[in-house]
């Protein structure tokens, strides 16, 4: 009799917990892959396609599905490091040369107003209209270089963002190396 009661209790417990788990899996269902979002948050959102994917989100999805993490030049080696930390993968050297942050600049005297760059800009950072001069909104430009190839008169060039007082950063404190005379160094070594 006891054993039947025990089985009944266990069975009841299993049913209750199962129902609970089933309910929770419907109620707290996570839409999309949260890991993709985390990876995407690390990517610099230049939408430049230099990784071979049409935008940062597709690359984030590819990374989660096993793609290499060193294909994003704008993210730099620091971006690779952060991705490696997040995903527990090995840090690899960047698959391209690292460049300082740049923005595109239109030579407004040469621009013929063809609107091709406007169509290619992934973040709508170029203003202008057909047969009107175009210009780049510097604050919105991500430096993706996608506007360079379509320009028929090659009036767009990339410029490194100069250091100003507003974006200047304190440098990492560097300990100055000091030359120590040989006999002194020997004495220190002996003492140690």
């Amino acid at each position: 009799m006891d054993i039947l009661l025990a089985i009944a209790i266990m069975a009841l417990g299993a049913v209750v917990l199962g129902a609970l788990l089933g309910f929770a899996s419907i109620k707290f269902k996570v839409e999309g892959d949260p890991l993709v979002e985390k990876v995407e948050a690390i990517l610099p959102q230049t939408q430049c396609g230099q990784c071979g994917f049409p935008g940062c989100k597709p690359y984030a999805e590819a990374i989660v599905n096993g793609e290499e993490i060193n294909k994003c030049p704008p993210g730099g080696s620091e971006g690779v490091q952060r991705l490696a930390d997040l995903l527990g993968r090995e840090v690899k050297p960047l698959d391209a040369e690292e460049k300082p942050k740049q923005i595109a600049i239109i030579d407004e005297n040469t621009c013929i107003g063809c609107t091709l760059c406007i169509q290619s800009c992934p973040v709508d950072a170029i203003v202008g209209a057909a047969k009107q001069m175009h210009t780049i909104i510097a604050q919105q430009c991500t430096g993706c270089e996608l506007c360079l190839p379509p320009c028929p008169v090659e009036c767009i060039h990339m410029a490194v963002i100069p250091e100003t007082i507003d974006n200047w950063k304190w440098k990492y404190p560097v300990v100055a190396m000091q030359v120590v005379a040989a006999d002194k160094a020997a004495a220190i070594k002996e003492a140690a």
Partner: protein
Amino acid sequence: MLMDLFKFKGGVKPPSNKLQSNHLPIAQAPMPSRLVMPLHQSIGGTPRPIVAAGDHVLKGQMIGEADGWISAAVHAPTSGTVVEVAMHVRPHPSGLDSLCVVIEPDGKDEWIARTPIDHNAAAPADVFHHLQQCGIVGLGGAGFPAHGKLTPTKGVPMDELIINGAECEPFITCDDLLMRERADEVVRGIAVFRDLLQPKKVLIGIEDNKPEAIAAMRAAVDALNEPFSVVAVPTLYPAGGAKQLIRVLTGKEVPGSMRSTADMGVQVFNVGTAYSAWRAIAHGEPLISRILTVTGNVHAPRNYEVLIGTPMGELLALAQPHPDTDGILMGGPMMGFLIPNPQVPVVKTTNCLIAHDDRLFPPKAPEMPCIRCGACARACPHELQPFEMYWFSRAKNFGKTQEYNIFDCIECGCCSYVCPSRIPLVQYFRFAKSEIWAREREKNASDQAKARFEFKQLREEREKADKAEKLAKAAAAQAAKKAAEAAAAAAESGADAAVATPAPEMDAKRAAIEAAMARAKAQREAVQPKNTEHLAPDQQKAADEIEARRVAAHLIEDRVSSEEATAAPTAQLDPKS
């Protein structure tokens, strides 16, 4: 007057070194050879230049207009000619250039018309505007525009107005001398702040190593019959930090996350700010000069009243620096920094210049590993744990430094001062803070880029969908029309009179188009070249000859057809077509 004082944790007592410069009265510095006025001299928006090279300016004439509410105007410190508006080095640890107005004095020192304001009669908004137009900013060091601090937070009663005369940093004596010599005007300035803020009480905190200043201020307060209390606070660096002084005088602890102390019903102003605010209100004088200490490795350290924009090198020469001077430190030895070259101008927040040499500031012995003694944590006036923040800053683990409240750090330098391993802790904290700010900026930029990219994609999708819908609609309409025509044709077999109606309509249309074309042609022909009237007979003859040749060569017809040819490719270039 006796009152209970509170204490803040930590703090250090470095040698004060104030006696060298505080025994002589304030001297007027001579007119410098040229004045360089950086436009950005306060926290907030950079003023826009309103003068150009070659303009003649008068003393006190505005040269940079405030940009936004948190911003203050800058003025010409003397009369003269604007040489250029260009990039020059301004006193900043980066040593980078910023926009400056360079003025060559004409020696006349001619004032512009000054307009005082009666702050009791005027509306507070007008007084704020006046202070902003006069460029009054906090002279204690941060340079926050004074008018921005004169509005109490809504719903929080203003309990205490604190006037900061502590001047806790070694070597600096400019506030000390200001209070000794011009206490009357300082107190009048405090009264203006009191009238605007309506606090319950006014406390003037002065470190007890300045007995003359305390006595002078007490005498001035009594003479003006104001209910202000002048409080001697114990000498302990950094008692002059706003949050430390609030703590000492009121016992209130300001949380690090609080943006403005006004949210706690306390507001702090420097004595120098009160003085210059009074000059602006009672005399209409904008902030174009200040008192500053020149000391350190010099023969004659003393305080000078200096025009803003004076090159620091010229000023230091007045105090006759010793030959082994190898640099100029702006600010005190705890928080100041070496300026990149002697041409750097004095700005509104420059309170002290110290001639630097190895005797006064011996080079630091090399940094040693942290031995975890905790001396920095005991010295920190903000009760932070500098050693923890140091490790994480060093390892560039910035998230962790924020968990240890790195942004509460006021960079006072107490931790570096007491560190037995001589670790430049503050440098690590500054590095970490600026990295965190840079990342914040990058994060914002990438968030914006992402939003704009997604919107562009959405827009393109929508345009495609709209186009498809339009096409579908047009196709449907076409089909309906065809069906209707077919139906009409079927019906027509019975009634052939109906077929005649569309034809005249078409004819009318065609006729209208032809008429319009004819009109356009007539107009084209009616246009005459503009310079063909009143020609001399020989000119007319030459023109006729050329015309005849051109007609003979069919050039005129050619020109018309080439115009048509050029019009076509441009139309093709337009991608919309």
